[in-house]
């Protein structure tokens, strides 16, 4: 009867060695099908985060250089290349933020402190509300319509 038992060490290598694995390869339909395009576009929006923050740093640096440097900074944004970039950046950053907030509930645990996590739709609606409120109030404030 004992002869029918499987021999668990039958495939054991004679000496310890690294586990053999297949070479990494892209998943099927990558990058053009399914959810891959939006996943990759979301990642590519990192360029807008990086570049737009750099332009903001340049602006604050210009403030430190005086009024002429600040005025030249604002005037430089009238260049067609900057205008095209910023139209793309505004669309890209808005889509990035809304997609991030739509995915946000999936990253949260079932309990948030002492409270049970709100329904996903409530969380997403709240985050969308924060986004559009910040956009509206920030635009009015920075644009000089508030205060």
């Amino acid at each position: 009867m004992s002869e029918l038992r499987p021999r668990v060490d039958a495939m054991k290598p004679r000496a310890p060695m690294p586990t053999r694995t297949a070479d990494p390869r892209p998943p099927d339909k990558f990058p053009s099908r399914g959810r891959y395009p939006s996943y990759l576009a979301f990642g590519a929006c990192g360029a807008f985060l990086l570049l737009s923050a750099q332009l903001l740093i340049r602006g604050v640096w210009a403030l430190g250089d005086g009024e002429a440097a600040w005025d030249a900074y604002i005037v430089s944004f009238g260049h067609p290349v900057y205008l095209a970039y910023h139209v793309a950046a505004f669309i890209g950053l808005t889509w990035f933020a809304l997609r991030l907030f739509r995915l946000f509930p999936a990253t949260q645990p079932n309990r948030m402190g002492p409270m049970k996590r709100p329904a996903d739709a409530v969380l997403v609606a709240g985050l969308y509300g924060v986004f559009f409120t910040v956009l509206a109030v920030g635009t009015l404030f920075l644009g000089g319509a508030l205060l």
Partner: protein
Amino acid sequence: MKTLMLKLEPVIWLLFSGGMMIGGLLLPVFVLVVALGGGLGVVGGEALGYDRMLALVTHPIGSLVVLAAMALPVWGGAHHLRHLWIDFGGLGSDSLVGFLCYGTALASSIAAILAVVRLHA
């Protein structure tokens, strides 16, 4: 080194997630009002004038908001670009690309801090 990185992991992830959140919330406002509004001349005059902007950025709350809008999104952006590179088969050069991405983020963060600090000097 590995232990140190594990200990720092929550801080590093705070930079990435905070960068995405802050960048997604604040940068569209900057792009819309200052870059597009100022560039097209739609918003101008006193609103984007030197004195008003200087007063806003040197206000304690304004300094914090602007610093967060400059220093955090560069980390989120760098992290996304690094992983985009890996997704397109760049795993072999990940060390170099990671160094370039996070090095840019670190240099930008230092520049952002200096830009704000020298306004207060």
